[in-house]
């Protein structure tokens, strides 16, 4: 880029003349920041709209910190009781309430922009979690969690769980009826934990529920501990992303050994800054126009009332739905005089345990059944990994069914249905739905892969019908250009693991055969059904037969079977 000729390069660096240049020189002489600039200024990042999803999460977090700072200036995390002297809202005047609730009313009604910031903060939290989940979906379905990014996948999962914790500790702070009942449910769940449950309940509430410690404790967690860890892990998440360089979608010229995209400066600086302001702007718009969590309608916490149609924030709905779906009678066991509440433990501990464990182990499981130890930087098209895509959709289906079950009362009232009927439907769906979703998704993926094969072998339908002299009609196909074709043939279709036989050459039983056999079984589940990418030989074969349409069924099958074994050898 420089215009300097070789023979001037040993000379002392030119003295800066501009103000910016002087400032940069000043800094560089004290920090050698030039090295960082050299490394990062023109660092290339691949471009795709879906890479923005994680950015939205990051920027929502920045908005959360900014709006949260505003709120801490006015919120008083105290459960001391006072009689509300404020005139507004009128329905709260003269009521006995905690200082926390009173200060929430005060910041909403007396502080200019206070309600706006509260609403921006709450909406940002919802968008933060939503963008994390969608970002994770992108990472999962494109296989971006594969080596070397398994660690970053785990870091991301922890970030998501911390996000849940941040949200929960946050919406419990105003000490209103709704959040108080949320805490009471938490208390009930904690008490169900065997052996230590009762003590954990005392530990959380500093005595019996609700006590007068919980709001200050949640406040410390919400504004110090959780955001502190979040910040540190976000830094690690981004550091690993930069260190490993971003993944890229498949396409011409993009390999596992390079990265194709635009330079950080100026394109990404501008786009990311722009994206930040757009995210912040949309959140401001939501805060301005959509009211959320009007706590003065619920009133200060009182252990007696509860409203119908009470819902937690959306990211907690799956837990709520899980609790609602579990049938109670018969699931509380008394063993040796001790009570084991399986009707609470299964939905509140086992179900999320299964969901999160799946997310934590999946990258390692998939690498193991493929015996895959390569670095992957080119993303998969979801159709090319039918089982992974199917499992991901099955997972989402379970999550969505649970979330819907967490709203079964609203579904019942909005559609005038029986709540018992809806609950029973969901009780069945939570088992059947994911299996069905897995099967359908896998079939769709295989179908799309076959469609890709068709396209590569036949080309596009041109709409031009030609009649031969013998009276036969065919439609002429135009072959794909090489970029289109490359996208459809550039993938791996791994075969199931092959294992050493049960006995060695002398007929002695081999150690570890049973374990190998199990892994092979799992590997078959993943890769038994597969569609191999088209090879040039197949295209050749197709053309040498004249029009591919004229191939009879058995010939075609032979060609495709051949492709399957050919790819297996790689």
């Amino acid at each position, binding site marked *: 880029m420089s215009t300097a000729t070789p023979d001037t390069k040993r000379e002392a660096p030119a003295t800066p003349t501009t103000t910016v240049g002087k400032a940069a020189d000043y800094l560089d002489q004290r920090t050698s920041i030039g090295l960082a600039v050299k490394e990062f200024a023109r660092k290339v990042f691949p471009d795709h709209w879906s890479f923005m999803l994680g950015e939205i999460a990051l920027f929502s977090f920045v908005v959360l910190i900014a709006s949260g700072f505003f709120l801490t200036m006015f919120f008083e995390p105290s459960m001391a*009781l006072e009689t509300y002297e404020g005139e*507004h*809202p009128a329905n709260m005047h003269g009521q006995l309430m905690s200082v926390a609730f009173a200060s929430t009313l005060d910041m909403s009604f007396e502080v200019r922009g206070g309600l706006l910031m509260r609403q921006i903060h709450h909406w940002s939290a919802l968008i933060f979690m939503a963008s994390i989940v969608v970002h994770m979906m992108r990472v999962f379905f494109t296989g971006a969690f594969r080596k*070397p990014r398994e660690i970053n996948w785990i870091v991301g999962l922890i970030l998501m769980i911390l996000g849940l914790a941040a949200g929960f500790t946050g919406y419990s702070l105003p000490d209103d009826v709704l959040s108080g*009942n949320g805490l009471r*449910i938490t208390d*009930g*769940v904690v*008490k169900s934990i065997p052996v230590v*449950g*009762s*003590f954990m309940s*005392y*530990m959380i509430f500093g005595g*019996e529920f609700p006590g007068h*410690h919980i709001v200050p404790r949640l406040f410390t967690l919400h504004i110090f501990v959780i955001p502190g860890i979040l910040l540190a892990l976000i830094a690690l998440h981004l550091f690993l992303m930069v260190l490993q*360089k971003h993944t890229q979608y498949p*396409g011409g*010229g993009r390999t596992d050994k390079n*990265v194709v*995209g*635009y330079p950080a400066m100026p*394109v990404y600086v501008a*786009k990311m800054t*722009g994206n*930040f302001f757009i*995210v*912040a*702007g949309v959140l401001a*718009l939501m*805060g301005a126009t959509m*009211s959320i969590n009007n706590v003065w309608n619920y009133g200060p916490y009182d252990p*007696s*009332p*509860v409203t119908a149609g009470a819902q937690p924030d959306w990211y907690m709905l799956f837990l709520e739905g899980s*609790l609602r779906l*579990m049938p*109670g009678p*018969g*699931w509380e066991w008394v063993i040796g005089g001790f*009570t084991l*509440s399986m*009707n609470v433990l299964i*939905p509140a501990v086992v179900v999320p345990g299964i969901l999160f464990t799946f997310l934590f182990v999946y990258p390692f499981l998939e690498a193991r059944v493929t015996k895959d130890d390569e670095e992957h930087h080119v993303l998969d098209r979801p159709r090319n990994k039918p089982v992974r895509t199917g499992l991901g959709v099955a997972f989402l289906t379970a999550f969505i069914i649970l979330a819907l079950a967490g709203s*079964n*009362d609203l579904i019942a009232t909005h559609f005038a249905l029986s709540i018992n009927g809806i609950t029973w439907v969901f009780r069945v769906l939570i088992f059947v739905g994911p299996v069905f979703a897995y099967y359908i998704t896998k079939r769709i993926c*295989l179908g799309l892969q076959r469609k890709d*094969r068709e396209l590569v072998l036949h080309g596009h339908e041109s709409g031009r019908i030609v009649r031969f002299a013998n009276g036969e009609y065919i439609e002429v196909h135009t072959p794909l250009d*090489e970029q289109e*074709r490359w996208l459809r043939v*550039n993938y791996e279709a791994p075969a199931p693991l092959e294992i050493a036989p049960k006995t060695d050459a002398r007929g002695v039983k081999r150690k570890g055969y049973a374990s190998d056999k199990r892994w092979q079984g799992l590997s078959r589940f993943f890769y*038994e059904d597969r569609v191999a990418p088209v*090879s040039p*030989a197949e295209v050749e074969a197709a053309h040498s037969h004249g029009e591919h349409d004229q191939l009879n069924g058995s010939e075609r099958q032979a060609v495709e*079977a*051949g492709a*399957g*074994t*050919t790819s*297996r050898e790689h």
Partner: protein
Amino acid sequence: MSENQNPPAGTSKDVTAAPEAGTAVGPADRFPDPGVPEHKKRLTDTDPHAAKRAERTVTILFVASILGTIGSIVAYVMVPPDGTTSGVRLSTLLLGLGLTVSLLGIGIAGIHWAKALMGDREFVQERHTLATQGEDRETAIKDLNEGLEDSGVVGRRGVLKGAFFGALALFPIAIAVPLIGSVGGDWNISQFKHTMWKRGMRLAIDPSGRPIKASDVTVGSVFHVVPETTEAYRETHDWITEKSKAVVLMVRLNPEDLRTDQSPEGETWSHEGIVAYSKICTHVGCPVALYEQQTHHLLCPCHQSTFDIADSAKVVFGPANRRLPQLPITVDDEGYLVAQDDFAEPIGPSFWERLK
């Protein structure tokens, strides 16, 4: 579909020699990478007018942002919240819209600038294997080994190592013990098993605290009930904690509708069809607040556990396992409803030591 089906896995796995279709190929069994697609120029690259127009659009957007900021300050000064809900809403709306324009102006301008005017040539950079290579790796291993050797703990001095790790593992206890010891208050978890109800304590209406006469309870009516206490006590934290356990839902049924009474001893816990049950759900502790007069069903709005009040509050639907505990009631000399005693079993959600 049948034509396109995969070869059955069994066959493809067992075939060791590649069949005809694969034999002819060698290196050409994969297509070659066509390389990065040709760069396409944008309108703003070729048409100076378009570039000028884009520049103007970006400028206008930045100016819009400035106007948005000014607008929000104007709103701050001109439309102070007057304290009413609608006044607060208006102030929130105007401040928020100003902020929105001020932020979106910058955001859209930045992205339009990047997309229309900044260079859009794609670059290719090499990736390097992440694992440290060659000499770097060897030096790192050598340094690490030398460091370990210098520390003098490798392969010997087991006691030293044990003491070192032991000390490290134990020192947090000095902090954890006072913390954990205090964080749970008095740790007296047996309090879960009792409420403030006592023999002869009057049933009072929540939240007014007025005691209830049996004669005031008409058939089919529902009362949200708390123990009668002093006004002053009802303004303490203790009260909120006690109320969390003591709240009761009281209903008067036709005595012939009452199918069973929970009392194990056979004497009655109800009074002329008036029954009182703990309002705290035996599932996870929400207040069971929705009573349906026709069916005598009591529904928890949190997780839809449903209890039949006419049949000793047994579970008829939902995730709760146990019936709601019944508060034994009777009337005193003045005709007020009073408790015969505390609940016979712990109220609310189950816990490990519940029956101990």
